[in-house]
């Protein structure tokens, strides 16, 4: 199931929260070898997690984390503007219609469908909140994954070579891509929309869980 949860509500889902931050440590520190901090509980948490981001999380049947990504508005602090403006020609990307998407993470146990489901969720957020683009930082290995699920970003700028190549990219909602992502995820539009609605409408969630 796809869930949309703000940082301050993560405490209501402790297992989902801890497995997400541990999967992030596993992906970014262990597998990708990024220079990220991992705490004593084995969780990767950075300064942007302290800004109450919106997380989009794929929750597995056993309640643990299957994959996730993190959103912040570009009118506040973002990783792209704070650290990667050399990849955007010095342009500070800032608009109420552009959110930053970072820490796209997949659990080792996650199937290919999870990545597609997350992209589908990205589409819900774009359409549901009147957004024009997501902007994000990613490395070379993600390029292949994005292409596979039919959600390749437009590259704004890149730095480094081979596996260390870091890029800033853009996503927007495109009908023709949506169909492909939907197919890769094995989900239906109706279900995806229902999960989105449920996360942002308390009364709706009463109906669905009744």
């Amino acid at each position, binding site marked *: 199931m796809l869930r949309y949860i703000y940082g301050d509500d993560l405490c209501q889902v402790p297992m989902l929260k801890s497995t997400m931050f541990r999967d992030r440590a596993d992906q970014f520190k262990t597998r990708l070898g990024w220079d990220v901090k991992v705490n004593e509980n084995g969780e990767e948490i950075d300064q942007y997690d302290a800004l109450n981001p919106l997380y989009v999380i794929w929750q597995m049947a056993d309640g643990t984390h299957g994959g996730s990504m993190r959103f912040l508005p570009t*009118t506040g602090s973002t990783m792209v503007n704070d650290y990667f403006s050399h990849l955007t*020609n*010095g*342009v500070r990307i800032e608009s*109420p219609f552009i959110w930053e998407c970072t820490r796209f993470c997949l659990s080792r146990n996650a199937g290919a469908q999870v990545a597609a489901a997350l992209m589908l969720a990205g589409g819900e957020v774009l359409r549901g909140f009147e957004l024009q683009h997501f902007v994000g930082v990613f490395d070379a290995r993600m390029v292949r994954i994005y292409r596979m699920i039919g959600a390749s970003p437009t590259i704004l700028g890149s730095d480094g070579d081979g596996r260390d190549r870091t890029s800033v990219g853009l996503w927007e909602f495109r009908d023709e891509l949506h169909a492909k992502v939907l197919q890769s995820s094995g989900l239906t539009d109706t279900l995806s929309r229902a999960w989105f609605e449920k996360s942002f409408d*308390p009364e*709706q969630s009463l109906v669905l869980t009744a």
Partner: protein
Amino acid sequence: MQRSKLETFLGTLEKATSLDALQQLTFALKDLYHVDHVVYHWVSADGEQYGAGTYDRLWVQRYIEKDYVRVDPVVVGCYQRFHPVDWKRLDWTTKTAKVFREDAIAHGVGNQGLSVPIRGPSGQFALFTISHSCKDDEWTSFIEDNRRDIILIAHYFNQKGLELEKSRVPAPNQSLSPREVDAMTFLAMGYSRAQVADTLAISEHTLRVYIESARHKLGALNTTHAVARAMNRGLIVV
């Protein structure tokens, strides 16, 4: 809503230099949209609170006296959030929320509302709200037609709010980057987007983001408006 009216409104907003002027602008906006209320409330990076809006004074007083900020589902549901929130999607089921809602409606707040929480630089936070009294379907179609503009206006109120507290907090740098200046200059010269992208050796998608970023910084409604504003401010020379 006619674009020209909205452009005129944003022009007046841009010239505002005081909290009083912002207050008057909330009334102007309420008339422009034919809605019952417009409220803009912000908390600066150092925790100072400000407000401007069209609510009845009695309601504002009562709100403070009753300490409604603790139970108001709009505040509870928007605090630390950053997506636009239709009041219908808030939790009004608790007893305190029901009592609050009844009191708010009795004071003319309206049964419908859209609140846009805004996150500014250095932890600044603001909430911009439009409220009205009407049936659900009327409200839904009003929101569908105007949501994007309302988000825009909310952010321009907030840019003004940040500017007004400039004396204490350094204002964010709103000047355009060289790349944005280039893009706006070629657009002002009548180049098409494809030609601008080609000239700057960037993709049209990238150009679109540069234009959107410049549009936001210039407080403009759309690209044409942004180009006009950049020229008026002498940021670009054609």
